[in-house]
């Protein structure tokens, strides 16, 4: 962790916020391994619900599901102390190393999921086989699925795998 330049008030404020997040104790109740894993499962279910609501064009369910996923995202970020998001200069070498490792896993998982989803849509859209065409709702679902997973996967993997956060 590098010391902030005291002449730069913005950098000092950022360092203060980062230190507050890294040393936060308000969410310690959520940091036990079992509760962290439950939170990851809840986040995955919230993402699945959001995608399903978008896919079937259910606007009544979509916004509450999206709010739920957003809430899970926020809580996950607090529970892992922002390890997935804080700028490099405000975290130490171990956190940077763990973060890089988990971003790699998240990238692989996301690439695999997107490839599978697009392949499934491509196959289903082939008129000679099923005769189904993806519409605006399905693209909407794909968009939200990718966005939520891209943002949440690193924190989800960190929350799942770390011995201590």
């Amino acid at each position, binding site marked *: *962790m590098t010391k902030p330049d005291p002449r730069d008030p913005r950098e000092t404020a950022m360092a203060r916020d980062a230190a507050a997040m890294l040393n936060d104790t308000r969410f310690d109740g959520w940091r036990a391994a079992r509760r962290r894993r439950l939170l990851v499962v809840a986040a995955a279910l919230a993402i699945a619900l959001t995608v399903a609501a978008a896919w079937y064009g259910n606007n009544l369910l979509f916004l509450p599901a999206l709010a739920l996923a957003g809430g899970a995202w926020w809580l996950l970020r607090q529970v892992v102390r922002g390890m997935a998001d804080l700028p490099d200069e405000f975290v130490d070498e171990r*956190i940077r190393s763990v973060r890089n490792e988990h971003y790699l896993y998240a990238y692989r998982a996301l690439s695999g999921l997107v490839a599978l989803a697009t392949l499934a849509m491509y196959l289903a859209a082939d008129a000679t086989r099923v005769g189904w065409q993806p519409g605006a709702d399905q693209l909407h679902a794909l968009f939200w699925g990718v966005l939520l997973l891209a943002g949440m996967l690193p924190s989800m993997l960190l929350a799942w795998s770390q011995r201590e956060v």
Partner: protein
Amino acid sequence: MGRLPKTTAEQVHNRLAVLRAERQLSRQELADAIGVHYQTIGYLERQEYSPTLALALRIAQFFELPVEAVFSLQPFAPMSESLYRQPGDTR
């Protein structure tokens, strides 16, 4: 040469827990002194994280010891064994 399992290949042993207890420092105090998060001290003490050379040197400098007195690729002998070894004992 065969590829060693990751855990064996990258294992660096250290005397951090002993040194910290000897100097009566909390994890937070040591972490603040060397510029890392307090949990990183726990990961180092449990040997679940191997530090970079720069961090190892910073830690050794903080304890005013040569780096090889704090870190080693071989497990350290217990302190009692080092202190009370009899002359002529080749263990």
